């Protein structure tokens, strides 16, 4: 009886301590982890992005509201900032990274294109596929046959419920197509550890990177991958820029 009581007290106090630890984790993490920031840039003339003719499906053409929708193979912002570049740690992870986010990544079908065009997420992190269009879509991710991720192909009707999916293996990146609208193309980058995705100005940021030396890899759908070594110290952002040359 006495032993059981002691075990119960011990468990409770351990839980209490653990709870305090979890609550205070962000502040502890901020001081104990670093950050990688940088910009992805394109040097030279970006290739012409062909306008997409969606007349085959009037629901799509209507949604774009007369605005010209183009391919998004290379999206360049002001000053050559290259968008949709996935930056992740390809070597040097020690396993003490922050747990994967419980927030699902969102992959929407809007105006008969994928929003975002490139989605990055962790292995095991959930992803929610939505259909905001007034037309049916067919989501068809095509992972490499040898990469360990399963290929699937699901229809999502108008007003159809979200599709929840998680990926089991690292793969940068899985192309996604729509079997109904052949021009639709998106990418899912599945990585381990911290990752960043460059925005319209080319800027990216990797948060919660434990101090250490890493190989940082950038991936862009048309120009492929580049790698650089980076050393991260606690509390101070390390800067790494990637420059792609236009073909």
């Amino acid at each position, binding site marked *: 009886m006495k032993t059981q009581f002691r075990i119960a007290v011990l468990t409770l106090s351990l839980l209490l301590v653990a709870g305090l630890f979890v609550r205070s984790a962000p502040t502890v993490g901020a001081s104990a982890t670093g950050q990688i920031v940088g910009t992805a840039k394109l040097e030279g003339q970006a290739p012409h992005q*062909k*306008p997409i*003719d969606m*007349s*085959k499906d009037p629901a799509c053409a209507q949604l774009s509201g007369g605005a010209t929708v183009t391919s998004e193979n290379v999206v360049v912002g002001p000053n050559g900032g290259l968008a949709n570049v996935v930056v992740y740690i390809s070597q040097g992870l020690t396993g003490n990274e922050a747990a994967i986010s419980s927030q699902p990544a969102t992959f929407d079908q809007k105006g008969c294109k994928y929003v975002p065009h490139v989605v990055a997420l962790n292995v095991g992190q959930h992803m929610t596929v939505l259909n905001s269009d007034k037309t049916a879509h067919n989501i068809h991710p095509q992972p490499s046959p040898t990469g360990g991720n399963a290929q699937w192909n699901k229809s999502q009707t108008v007003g159809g419920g979200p599709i929840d999916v998680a990926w089991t293996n690292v793969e940068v990146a899985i*192309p996604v197509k729509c*079997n109904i*609208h*052949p021009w639709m193309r998106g990418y899912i980058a599945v990585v381990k550890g911290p990752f960043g995705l460059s925005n319209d100005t080319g800027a990216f940021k990797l948060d919660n990177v434990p101090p250490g030396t890493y190989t940082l890899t950038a991936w862009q759908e048309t120009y492929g991958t580049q790698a650089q070594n980076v050393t991260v110290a606690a509390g101070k952002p390390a800067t790494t820029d990637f420059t792609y040359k236009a073909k």
Partner: protein
Amino acid sequence: MVGKIFAVVVVLITLATAYCVMAHVWWMPVDISVHGPKIDHQIEETILVAGLLFVAGQLVLASFAFVYGGATSKPKQIPGGAKPLVIFAFVLVGAEILALSFIGSKAWGAVYFEAPDPGSMRIDVQAGQFAYYFRYPGPDGKFGPLHPDLINEGTQNYFGIDTDHDQDAKDDIVTAELAIPVNKPILLTLHSKDVGHSFYVRELRVQQDFVPGLNIPIHFTATQTGRFEIVCTQLCGLGHYNMKAYLSVLSPADFDDWLKKQAAAQ
């Protein structure tokens, strides 16, 4: 009594059907092609012959039902005997089918065996699950060679053309809509990149399958401007219901404008 009611209903249905066909209720859409009248004539002829037999058959059925429907003593024999009747029916139907095939082959031959006009405008068609794409040769009048390994829908290279290396491909114009000038002979070459599809435009009276691995020519001349639907009529997979494109028949000036705009967007 039941037999007589049945006979009356059969006659009413037959007359109503005959009226709908003869008055062209639910008829074919307007024909906009040069070869179309031959096809329409053939369809009229087929419906006339089949319709006469249909009406005759239904009337015979109704009269038998009327006379013998409620009778307690059934006739033991078909009047005149069964054998001559079967032979008569066999010869009649056989002759009809032969006649239709013979007359029909002329309409079919006019579309398929007549060589296309040497001045035809050539357009390539690529069918794939589940859309059509069209290719115009551009100012040089030459199509670049096709490289199926280069087909990439993500970069909108639906045909697999190599604009970096093939001189003839550099000015090729790929579109999602088939625009043609009115009254100009058109020669399409149909390719499929995956499975069997079909190119069907009701108003053009053209329906031709795509067969993967074959380049299938089809030629026609449109006589009216307008926008018409191109649909796939060969079940090709999950998105078959959504496989379509539009045919725009334009005046020559409008067509030139359209083609210029498309060329600029490449």
